[in-house]
């Protein structure tokens, strides 16, 4: 077990190294001369060259990359071109709020999708199942920003129940401190995942319902409710854990759209704004963090599944 974790950590380190190299070289390709970006179009070529020389941007890409890696080891993510702040400080400011949004979306999605999927499996082909499946299909086919807009149009503009803009509070606990303003963003974020999770949970629960141990539990005289709670639930959720682990990039993309749509000051919005500002150190850092989260998501999911299901031996 300990050896497995160690091995995974080493592999993860290599993966992250690969990602960092890929992003770094791509950004280098996109923008060779940070001096031009920082000093603006009007700056003289000499000034730009001087700036680049001063900050070491005239060295070879490899040297620059190695220097960047050295920085990373000291947890230094570099300095923003445009905001006159350390990237690490900048990200730290926004990270809490983005994490809250993501977590709230994930929790809501799971809380709805797990029981829903099991209900659909138990009542297979009933009206409830068919109606839920139909809604899932339509929701899945709806681009999430369109869904968010529809929610705004209905609940904010027509009914006036919720504000159209997310909370602008700087506290990371926005979801709790300003629940009204966060209702629509969290719903939009969750809706995208619910359709995927519920359909996945449904088919996983159907698989489990067909297994012999369910029949055995029935023969013991257990009422259906207990069969579901004690026997089906845990086994049916195992594939979902893996799915959530692999879906981290998708969840991050969801954040990007929701933050942009509801003008929610989080990492996603920071990324998009930095994209417009050509603020490359920020883009680089956030992409790396996305990679870390993805790798960590897969890793944690594998550990959780292994802990819940002893058939899986952590070797390799």
């Amino acid at each position, binding site marked *: 077990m300990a050896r497995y974790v160690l091995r995974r950590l080493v592999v993860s380190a290599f993966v992250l190294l690969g990602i960092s190299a890929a992003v770094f070289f791509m950004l280098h390709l996109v923008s060779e001369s940070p001096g031009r970006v920082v000093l603006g179009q009007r700056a003289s070529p000499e000034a730009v060259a001087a700036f680049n020389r001063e900050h070491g941007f005239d060295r070879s890409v490899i040297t620059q990359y190695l220097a960047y890696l050295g920085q990373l080891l000291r947890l230094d993510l570099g300095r923003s071109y445009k905001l006159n702040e350390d990237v690490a400080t900048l990200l730290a400011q926004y990270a809490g709020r983005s994490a809250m949004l993501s977590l709230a979306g994930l929790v809501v999605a799971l809380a709805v999708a797990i029981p829903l999927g099991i209900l659909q499996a138990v009542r297979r082909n009933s009206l409830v199942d068919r109606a839920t499946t139909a809604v899932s299909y339509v929701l899945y086919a709806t681009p999430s920003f369109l869904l968010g807009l529809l929610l705004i149009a209905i609940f904010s503009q027509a009914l006036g129940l919720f504000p159209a803009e997310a909370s602008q509070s700087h506290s990371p606990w926005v979801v709790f401190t300003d629940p009204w303003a966060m209702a629509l963003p969290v719903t939009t974020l969750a809706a995208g995942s619910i359709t995927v999770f519920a359909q996945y949970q449904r088919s996983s629960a159907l698989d489990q319902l067909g297994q012999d141990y369910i029949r055995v539990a029935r023969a013991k005289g257990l009422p259906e409710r207990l069969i579901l709670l004690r026997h089906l639930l845990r086994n049916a959720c195992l594939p979902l854990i893996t799915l959530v682990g692999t879906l981290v990039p998708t969840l991050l993309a969801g954040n*990007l759209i929701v933050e942009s749509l509801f003008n929610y000051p989080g990492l996603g919005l920071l990324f998009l704004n930095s994209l417009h500002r050509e603020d490359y150190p920020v883009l680089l850092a956030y*992409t790396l963090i996305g990679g870390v989260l993805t790798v960590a998501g897969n890793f944690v999911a594998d550990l959780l599944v292994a802990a819940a299901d002893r058939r899986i031996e952590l070797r390799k």
Partner: protein
Amino acid sequence: MRRHPLALAGGVLLVLIAGFCFLGPLVYPTNQTDVDLVNAALPPGPGFPLGTDTNGFDVLGRLMAGGQVSLQIGLLAALFATTIGTIYGAVAGLAGGVVDAFLMRLVDVMLSIPFLFFVLILSARFHANAVTLALVIGCFSWLLSARLVRGEVLTLRVREFVLAAKVMGASRSRVILTHLIPNALGVIIVNVTFQVADAILVVSALGFLGFGLTYPAADWGSQLASGVTYISADYWWLVYPVGGCIILTVLALNLLADALRDAIGRPTSVRS
């Protein structure tokens, strides 16, 4: 097909949508090149059944033109991704052993890369046209096809009918051509269908984030994206028709793919 009413519905819907996009302009030709600010942002009415957009383009005609682009991008991206994924997955599955382990570990690594960020960074700098957009999307969606095809090949490879062919003296290429490919084809076709749907959604998300196709080319995604900026101005006809088109198309593709998957998943149940 008769036993799968949803597949039929999906298929018919898809044919109708394709007909609307590709044959529609023949019946209802519109000017989609010259800006006409006099007739900008008109609500639906005589002459403009779905109104005009802020550049004065007829929305109905624009839906047809945009649909062509969206469907082409989706199909191209899906074919690209599936081709690469199929070849890669098949090679891994057939080779087995160390080659397989290496190739699949590589896929694992690539799956950990947050591709949307890459795409966004790239498209911020380089202006995408329909083909490059399709290729870029294809580049990050072939990984799952590769996994899928490899899994399929691995299971097929040890199935008894494949062993039987080998005992009869069938060559490797014969086994692949007459047994593996026909049996894996179903899975691959289903995969293409799903991927067309997903590509259309990704393009629309990119459009919304401001990194889709650039004006004057316009797929449904960028149309919708530009429409939503005016939603507070009550220009609803710039949002709902195109939103509906995307939803219907993706829905039709997914219905079709799901039903196809059901159909190939249980080849023995066609009985009775």
